[in-house]
């Protein structure tokens, strides 16, 4: 069975400051990893994904994430946030041969001016 833990339920951050959202997963097999963003009253949108290859993955809107197999982590970072980055962020995992996408509990990011 797979599981995903997002260590912070809420992250307040000032505009133009960096932000890091932590994600740890557990799985007995190899994994695919995803970060999705949900803006208020909308569905989820894909930010980035890791399938294989380079462990540093770049996504949309200036976000990037690093896959660390030894620490079973996939933390999301942005060097300078904007007010428009206020949203909820979800980490998710699946296996190449799996039959479902497992989501973490989400991290709410509130960007303050």
């Amino acid at each position, binding site marked *: 069975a797979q599981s995903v833990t997002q260590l912070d339920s809420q992250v307040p951050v000032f505009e133009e400051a960096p932000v890091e959202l932590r994600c740890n997963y557990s799985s007995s097999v190899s994994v*695919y990893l995803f970060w999705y963003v949900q803006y208020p009253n*909308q*569905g*989820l949108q894909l930010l980035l*994904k890791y399938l294989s290859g380079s462990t540093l993955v770049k996504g949309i809107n200036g976000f990037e994430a690093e896959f660390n197999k030894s620490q079973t982590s996939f933390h999301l970072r942005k060097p300078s946030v904007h007010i428009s980055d206020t949203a909820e962020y*979800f980490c998710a995992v699946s*296996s190449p041969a*799996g*039959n*479902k996408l497992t989501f973490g509990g989400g991290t709410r990011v509130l960007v303050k001016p």
Partner: protein
Amino acid sequence: NAGVTQTPKFRVLKTGQSMTLLCAQDMNHEYMYWYRQDPGMGLRLIHYSVGEGTTAKGEVPDGYNVSRLKKQNFLLGLESAAPSQTSVYFCASSEAWAGQPQHFGDGTRLSIL
């Protein structure tokens, strides 16, 4: 470019009533999914479908039924609504299971009184 469309957007039901949520996608995707989103729990998979005429149970299927009579539509039914089914429901679709991103609708907010 509609993507994934969910109807209705909001609904209030009384305990014991039934209703059907409709999901339609115009991307010719094979796979479709129904999730529920509850605070702090991320998204949990209710049922999914890997093609027209097929359905399968996800993580939390009890109290729900689904049908995929046409490739573009995926219906979620509540036969006898319970207050525990108060949630936001999301439909998603994708080209394949593991490595492909899922495309989400904007959700249906359902309250059971």
